[in-house]
């Protein structure tokens, strides 16, 4: 647990970066600090490992006052991930990851074994160990950054916009893997971002800070979206928050309608009684591949190929959120959202109005089986 006790940071020129902040980051959870630039979120984070010294107040790490622990010793016990990874260009990947173990005086072999373990854990192939940071892409460097922070297995991790310098697709991947890793490791994490979507996706709790370093609201993501405490938070959380809040309402088991399908590689059925002319195409494993528009030039009687497919619809999973279900319906070319089972097999389809009906009149949700 990390606890801020009326922490204030004032710079010599009179700028107040953080103003008597009280905050608790519970053990084993991700606490996200989010806010516009100048809200003191990075300053707050950096005060935890004393990269910045607070002007007044105390920060507690469990029952220890961080101000009383020598800075270097404190930092070796806290994982630290920063925006541009900050890898050491002159060291190989494996030695980068082993930095803190080396500092703690582990012998080289033990430190490298541990580092190799971590590379695997963050999804990097073993032959990367001997490479140098300049040989890696931004996303890969950031994975190394995470591995390096985890090397000495610190209970606490500080992450300062770790995913903001990579492209959106890679960022999404890194976020998902980060959540998976956290579900295995259960670290106490303080995470800084300026991206409210990232905050909502990753946070167990989200602290919204306003300019001048005051805490505006501390809440779970769902609560933040549903009940922003004031106009600032509402504005910062932004548009579409009703829609985004759906991501936190699970649909339970969706009652879908059966969808006629055709297999990839099978001939297109000649006529169909389905009036709108859209037919769902699945592969041999019964996984949806895309939609076929019947009556399109040359499609009649031919074998269904990849090139004929209309893609672009998203998939909703049974047991997933209402947001995913609505998105599947809205993005589907046929207007019917495709729902799949956990294993990717087709479950059926659902229209947007059916999802809306579910949103307006939620079904009594069955208790999940323990």
């Amino acid at each position: 647990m990390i606890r801020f006790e009326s922490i204030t940071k004032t710079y010599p020129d009179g700028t107040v970066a953080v103003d008597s902040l009280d905050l608790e980051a519970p053990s084993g959870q991700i606490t996200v600090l989010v806010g516009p630039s100048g809200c003191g979120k990075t300053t707050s984070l950096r005060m935890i490992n004393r990269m910045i010294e607070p002007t007044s107040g105390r920060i507690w790490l469990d029952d220890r006052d961080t101000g009383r622990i020598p800075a270097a010793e404190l930092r070796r016990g806290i994982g630290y991930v920063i925006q541009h990874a900050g890898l050491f260009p002159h060291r190989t990947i494996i030695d980068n990851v082993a930095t803190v173990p080396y500092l703690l005086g582990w012998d080289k072999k033990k430190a490298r074994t541990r580092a190799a373990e971590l590379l695997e854990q963050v999804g990097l192939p073993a032959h990367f160990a001997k490479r140098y940071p300049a040989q890696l892409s931004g996303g890969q460097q950031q994975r190394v950054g995470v591995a390096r922070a985890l090397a000495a297995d610190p209970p606490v991790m500080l992450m300062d916009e770790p995913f903001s310098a990579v492209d959106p697709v890679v960022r999404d991947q890194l976020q998902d893997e980060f959540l998976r890793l956290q579900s295995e490791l259960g670290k106490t994490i303080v995470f800084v971002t300026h991206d409210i979507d990232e905050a909502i996706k990753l946070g167990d709790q989200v602290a919204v800070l306003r300019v001048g370093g005051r805490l505006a609201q501390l809440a779970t993501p769902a609560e933040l979206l549903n009940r922003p405490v004031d106009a600032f938070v509402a504005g910062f959380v932004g548009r579409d928050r009703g829609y985004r809040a759906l991501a936190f309402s699970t649909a339970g088991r969706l009652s879908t309608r059966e969808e006629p399908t055709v297999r990839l590689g099978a001939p297109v059925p000649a006529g169909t009684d389905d009036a709108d002319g859209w037919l769902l195409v699945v592969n041999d494993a019964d996984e949806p591949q895309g939609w076929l528009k019947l009556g399109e030039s040359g499609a009649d009687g031919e074998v269904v190929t990849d090139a004929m497919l209309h893609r672009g619809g998203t998939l909703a999973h049974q047991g997933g959120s209402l947001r995913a279900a609505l998105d599947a319906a809205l993005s589907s070319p046929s207007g019917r959202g495709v729902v799949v089972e956990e294993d990717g097999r087709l479950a059926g389809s659902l229209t947007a109005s059916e999802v809306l009906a579910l949103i307006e009149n939620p079904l009594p949700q069955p208790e999940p089986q323990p």
Partner: protein
Amino acid sequence: MIGDVLTWLNDPAHWRDTRVDKGIPTQLQTHITFTLIALAIALALALPLGLFIGHTGRLTFLVTAANALRALPTVGVLVLLTVIISPHFHGRTDLGFVIPTEIVLVFLAVPPILSNTYAGVQNVSAAARDAAAGMGMTGTQVLRKVELPCSLPLIFSGFRSATLQVIATATVASYVTLGGLGAFIYDGLQQQDFPQMIGGGVLVALLALLADLLLATIQRYAVSRGISGRFSTKSVIPADAATAQVRTAEASTV
């Protein structure tokens, strides 16, 4: 003319010491000695100072001040220092002339080493320094384990340019009666023996080239491949997607 220079260089008489004149090997050795002493002193002064200034960001005016030293006219300073210093030495010692010469050479060697070391440390990526401190390195550890290795290419280039300058300028030692390859140049000038004069110049140039080659070789092995960019695998940066299994989130594309 070129033929005359080659003849002079090939004349075995010039490779032997005589009662009045010293031969090429002896003068070369003297030249190298002057050079090494000057470089060692300059390195001992400028490297730690440059690292300190780069690491702390304090006393940066010293870098500017050192660069101002480059503007001093070498021969003028040498004569001035000789006039001041040599009367304090008597008897069979050259020190009255060696000390002013070395001072002048150190003046020349310090600025490139100092400013390059400072610039090298300054140029280390802010993220790498921040990460180093954030992971619990002390100030000295950040300097020793991150800033110094990362700034080696610039430090080397400063040291190499200092070496070239000192080798070339050490010829002025002969202006104040000392030996070194400059002796051939000054004697040749005085005696209107131009093959000797040019021969001396050629020897200085060769020495400078050899020294630079040696330093380039050392640099190759001293600087991490991660910085110099000489990677063993010729691989270009692979796409991120190739290494990460694509984990589908809630939604994936149909």
